[in-house]
Structure formats: C-alpha cells, structure tokens
C-alpha cells in the first residue's frame, strides 16, 4: 500500500515536471548553447537542424534547455523564435507593445519629485479598466527640514488620447495627508488630515512594458483650521505594465 502510494507520488511529481517542460525542434541550420544566461558566456555546444530540445525555464531573455545528448545550457530567445513546436509552427515570442496599454492592465511604478520644495518619493500601483480610465493607489513620502509628509492617495486618471505614444491625462483623487514635524525642532503633534487633489500628466511609452510618467498635482488639505492648506507637487518616474 505504502509502495503504491509512493509510486503514485513519484508519478505525480514526474507529471508536474513534464507539464512544465516543452519540446521544440530546431528550424535554423544550428542553434548555439551557452554556458550561462548572458551574451558573454561561451558557446559550448551546438545542436543542429531537426533535433529536438527540451525547454526547462527562462530567465530574462534566455531559456535554459536540455539537448538530445543531455547537455544543459542557455539559448537566447531570438533563437528560440526559430524553432518549431510539436504542431509544426514557430514558437511564438511575446513582445509587449503599445497595444497592450489599450487593453485592461495593471501598472506599478516609482516616481521621484518635489512636493512643496521637498524631495518626494512615490510608489504606486494601478489598474486600467478601459483604455481611458485608470484607478491608482499612491504612497508618497517627503522628508524635509521641518517636517516629513506622508500621502496615501486614491486617484482616477483619464487619458485624453490613449492611443498616442505620448499621451496626456488628467487626474483627480482623494487621500490622507500626514505631517510629522521634526523632533529636533518642536515637539508638536502629528497631524493627519483628509486631502483632495487634481493634476495633469504625460505618459510616454518607452519600449516593451516600460513607461515614463511625468505629472503635476495640486493638493488641498482639508484641515480643521479656518484655512485649507494647499501645496503642489511635480514628479516623474517610470512604470511597468503587467
């Protein structure tokens, strides 16, 4: 019984391995097998046209393969594009293009900027529902000489011309503004208020899944005092589509 269970387990294990490994046939006269996942690593083996290689995994632009003679090495994805799968068609490489930004997608990024004359850092994540509308959650920190400010904002972006490579957008949002005075100066209280913001920005599509984003924002902090605080921020950074 135990033996059978072990056998079953081994079968399951091998099943998992097989499910992750794929075989392709070389269509070019030959394919170079490198010792490591990089252009500088030496070619130690060559597999000729018609032979089948097993794909194990990929790292960045390199794919780890097993040759018919059992050697293990790395092949560049451009060479993988010149191999045939079991149905006889070329293996499809997947390149991200600007088109991917017109479909619903997620985006994460970092930005650096100036918030009220203090250097600020922002980490953000968002989801684009349509090609025009995107919801963003942003966390910003700016540590100045008098106080450190922390912002958590939820905003909505609207792309005016989403199909342009350089695409302008407008944004509005709400959030929480937390101002913590420097301990060295005064022992005053930490303030946390609600804030609203509006802004404009520019999204520049660079290459693959990368974007450059630059924006200007105007914040209004809804304080309990008679006057609301107002400050502005410029920032720029890059993001990644997934």
């Amino acid at each position, binding site marked *: 019984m135990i033996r059978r269970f072990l056998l079953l387990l081994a079968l399951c294990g091998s099943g998992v391995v097989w499910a992750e490994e794929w075989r392709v046939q070389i269509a070019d006269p030959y394919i170079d097998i490198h010792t*490591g996942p990089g252009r500088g690593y030496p070619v130690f083996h060559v597999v000729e046209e018609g032979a089948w290689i097993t794909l194990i995994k990929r790292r960045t632009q390199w794919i780890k393969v097993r040759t018919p003679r059992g050697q293990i090495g790395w092949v560049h994805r451009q060479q993988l594009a010149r191999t045939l799968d079991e149905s006889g068609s070329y293996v499809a490489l997947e390149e991200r293009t600007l088109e991917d930004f017109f479909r619903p997608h997620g985006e994460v990024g970092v930005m650096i900027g100036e918030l009220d004359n203090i250097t600020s850092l922002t980490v953000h994540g968002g989801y684009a529902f349509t090609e025009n509308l995107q919801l963003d959650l942003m966390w910003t920190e700016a540590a100045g000489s008098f106080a450190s400010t922390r912002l958590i904002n939820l905003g909505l972006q609207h792309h005016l011309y989403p199909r342009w490579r350089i695409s302008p957008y407008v944004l509005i949002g709400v959030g929480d503004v937390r101002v913590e005075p420097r301990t*060295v100066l005064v022992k005053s209280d930490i303030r946390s208020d609600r804030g609203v913001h509006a802004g404009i920005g520019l999204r520049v599509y660079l290459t693959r899944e990368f974007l450059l984003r630059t924006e200007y924002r105007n914040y209004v902090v809804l304080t309990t005092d008679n006057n609301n605080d107002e400050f502005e921020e410029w920032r720029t950074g890059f993001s990644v589509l997934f």
Partner: protein
Amino acid sequence: MANRIQRTVLSVIMLSLPALLPAAEQDDSALIDPRIERRQIRESQIDSENIELGLYAGLLAVDNFNTPPLVGARAAWHVSEDIFFELSLAQAKTGETSFEKLGGGVQLLSSDERLFRYYNLSVGYTILPGEAFAGRNRAYSTGLYLLAGAGSTDFAGDSHFTLNAGMGYRLLLTDWLNLRMEMRNHMFELDLFGSDEVTNNLEWSFGIGGFF
C-alpha cells in the same frame, strides 16, 4: 416474458447503433491520430524566473555612531541580463556617539531613536558578468554590479530622504540559489548636532537569495 423484454431492448439498441456509430468511429480515429499529442508553445508557457528574493546581514558604519550589525531583506526584478530593480529593507541598532561616551551620562537619543531603519528602491547594472572556476570541473556564474537608488531612513526620531550607491558581487551556486557580497553608501542629511550635515553610512553585507 423475460425473453421478449430482452429482445425488445436488444432491438432498440441495434436500431440506435447506426446513430451512435459515427461518434464511436471518430473516437477511434482520434486515438490513432498522432496530432492529439501536439502542443503549441508560447513563450509565456515556459516557467520564468526573473524575481529574486533574499536576506542579508552585515555591518553598518553609522556616521558619528558605532558600527552595529545589520539585517535586511531584498526583492529584485531582473528585466534583462544586465539590469535589475531592487527594493530593500534593513535595520540596525546603533550605540552611543563618542560625545555621549565622553560626556558621562549625556543621552542624545532615546532607545527607539537609536534604531536605524531604511528602505530603498535601486537600479542595478551588471558591469562585469562572468564565470568563476572552482577546480577543474566546476564553474559558477558570477557578476559584478553597480547599484544606485533612493529611499528613506528612519533614524534619530525622523525620516530622512536617502540616496544610496554601491557595488556588489553575485555568485550563483546553482541556477537559482545565489550568494552576494555588497558595499553600499547611504547618504542623508542629519541635523542631530545643530546644523545640517550630510552623513555617509557605509554598509558591508553578505546575502543569500534565490530566483523564483
């Protein structure tokens, strides 16, 4: 009686057989058709390992303070064979400044304020990828990389905007498990002693990580 029922049932089955037959034939041909096993392959189906997670420990020479041990964690995303983006978090507990030691009972900072905690986002570039050889039959992939970025440091009761720059050496023990040694400088302005001054805090660390 039973015989008659049997006959009726059998004749019904016989009559319905021609209707079932084409389907059965199709199944048979599918069994011997070699194309059933053929799979189309897309690049995304191949298991990818571009995320690297790791832990590190070392020493942090805090400017004007002592050199306490430091522990941290990092997550990196490898975009290409050369470039990676990295998020790291670490902390160290600093001791007394020279001033406090000599001053006899003077305490500049409370215990909580002595905790040095940073996070940063950095970009790394592998300038010298290579291989290291251990004996005749063993070769390990290695890489010398430069790293620079920005983040925030919580120290002396405040957070400070911090720039960091450094370099490191990565050695891949297996395809996914790696060791690294790194030197980094964390620069930020501190006004603990009256005026703003830029402090240089050198970190020397060893880490272990894996690609997932």
